[in-house]
C-alpha cells in the first residue's frame, strides 16, 4: 500500500474507533429502579403493564411509581417504540386515559437522567428510563432493571 493510502486508511480507522467507542449507539436506554425493589428483570409485557397502569405493585410489594421523560425526549420515543411499537403520542394518550379512568396515578415528570435517578432513589417502587451511559455509574440505592425484549 502506498504511504498516502496507508495514512488515509489509518486515519479512517481512528475516526471509526473514536465514534464507535466514544459514545453509545443511538437509542441505548435502560430502565432503572430502586435497589429495594427485587424485580431485577422484566419482559416487554410486564413493563408495558407497569407504564400503562395495569400493574400496580411489584412482586416485592412496592407500589409502582412511574417517572416519565418529557414529550419529545429521546427516552419517551424509545419507551413508546419498545413497549407499544408506536409513536410517543399513542403511548402518552394511553397513559393519560388510564389516569383519567382512575386506574393509574399520574406519572411524575423526570426532565433528565439525574432527575430520574433521584426520583427512583426516593421512591421504593419507582421506575424510569435513562440513557445507557448514565446507568453505568448509578448511586447506591438505584439499580438497573434488565429489560428482556
Amino acid at each position, binding site marked *: 500500500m502506498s504511504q498516502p493510502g496507508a495514512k488515509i486508511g489509518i486515519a479512517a480507522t481512528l475516526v471509526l474507533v473514536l465514534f464507535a467507542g466514544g459514545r453509545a449507539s443511538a437509542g441505548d436506554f435502560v430502565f432503572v429502579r430502586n435497589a429495594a425493589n427485587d424485580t431485577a428483570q422484566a419482559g416487554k409485557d410486564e413493563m408495558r403493564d407497569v407504564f400503562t397502569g395495569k400493574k400496580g405493585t411489584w412482586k416485592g410489594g412496592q*407500589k409502582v411509581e412511574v417517572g416519565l421523560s418529557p414529550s419529545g425526549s429521546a427516552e419517551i420515543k424509545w419507551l413508546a417504540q419498545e413497549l407499544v411499537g408506536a*409513536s410517543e403520542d399513542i403511548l402518552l394518550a394511553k397513559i*393519560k386515559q388510564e389516569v383519567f*379512568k382512575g386506574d393509574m396515578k*399520574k406519572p411524575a415528570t423526570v426532565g433528565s437522567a439525574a432527575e430520574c435517578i433521584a426520583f427512583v432513589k426516593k421512591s421504593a417502587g419507582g421506575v424510569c428510563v435513562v440513557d445507557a451511559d448514565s446507568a453505568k455509574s448509578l448511586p447506591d440505592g438505584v439499580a438497573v432493571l434488565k429489560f428482556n425484549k
Partner: protein
Amino acid sequence: MKRLILISACCAAAALSFGRRAVAQEFSVGTYGAIEYNATRTVQRADSSATTTNGFNLASLDLFLRGSMGNWSFLSEVLFDVDRGNDISIDLDRFQLSYEVGDWLKITGGRFHTSLGYYNTAYPQGGAVYLLPMDRPELVDQHDNRSILPASTVGLNFHGKLPFAQQRFSYDLDVANGRGVQSDDLANGGDINNQKMFNLRLRYEINGLIMGVNGLIDWIPPRNNMDPATDQLNTLREQILGAHIAYVEHPWHLIAEGYHIQHVGPDQTQRTLAGLTELGYTVGQVTPYARYEFARFPSPPDVFWLTTFQQSRGNYNAVSTGIKIVANENFAVKIELEWNRSDLNTEYRAGTQVAFGF
C-alpha cells in the same frame, strides 16, 4: 382510670405520628372536552316526511381532579354538557375515594361508573378524546340520562386481581343504591327503597385480550305520578346478564358487548336485548373505525322507560363509521357518518368533532 386512658391515647397518637414515614402526595387537575358540528336528516317511517338540521354543539367540558397519598386516592369529575332542552347541565359524573390494599383488593366508595362490560368503565363520559367514535354508544350514553344500562351508581366497588393463574382473572363487585324511580333519577343522596343493587363482573385477560361476564340484580321502586299512562305501581326486579370481549392494543381496537335486561314485575317480565361491536385499526396517527349497535325492546313498551328516552324511537340498528386523527397526545379530530334506523324513523348524520384532554 379515665386519665390513664387519655394519657395512653395521647402517647399512642404521638407514637403513630413520629413513627409514620413521609409519604409523597400527588394532586393533579385535568380538563377534557369536545366541540362538534353535526348535520342530521331524519326521515319518518310513517309518512316519509323528512327534516334536516345542522348545528354546532358544545359536546362537553369535564373538570377532573385527582389526588393520592400512599394507598389512598381520590378523583372527581364535574361534567358540563348540553341536554335536549339546549340548557347546559352540570353533573358530578364521578366522585370516588379509594383505598388500595394490594393488587387483590381496591375499595372505592362514592359515585362511579357501574362495572358493566368494557365500554362503561374504559371510557368515562367526559373523555371524548379517548373514544374512537364521537360519542359513547346508547347502551351507556348518559346525555339526558338515556343510557339503557345503569351507567352510574353510588355505593361501593371492590376490585382486584385474583392471586392465581398469573393474575389473569379479575373481579369487580358493586354494592350500591341502585336505580331510582326512573332512569334519570340517580340515587345520589340515599336509597329510596333501601334495597341495594349488586353487580359482579368477572374477567380473564391474556396478551391484551379481555373476556368478561356480568350479572346484576336491583330492585326498582314504584313510580306513582298519578298518570295511568306512565305509572309503575309495583317494585320491579331488574336483572342484567352481559358478556364482553375487548382487544384494545395498538394498532387494533376491537370491542363487542351484549346484554339481556329483564324488568320483572308481579304481572309481567319485560326483556330488552342490546349490544354493540366496534372495530378500528391505527395507521400512524389515523384510525379508521366502524361501530354497530342495536336494541330490541319489549312490546308493549317497558314500563320502567315510559317516562324517559330509552324506548322513544323503538327498536333500532345503528352503524357509524369514520376516522380519528390523533393530532398529538392532547387533541384528536374525528369525522363520522352515521346511519340509525329505528321503528320510528331513520337518521342520517354527518359530524365532525375536535376533542381535547389535558
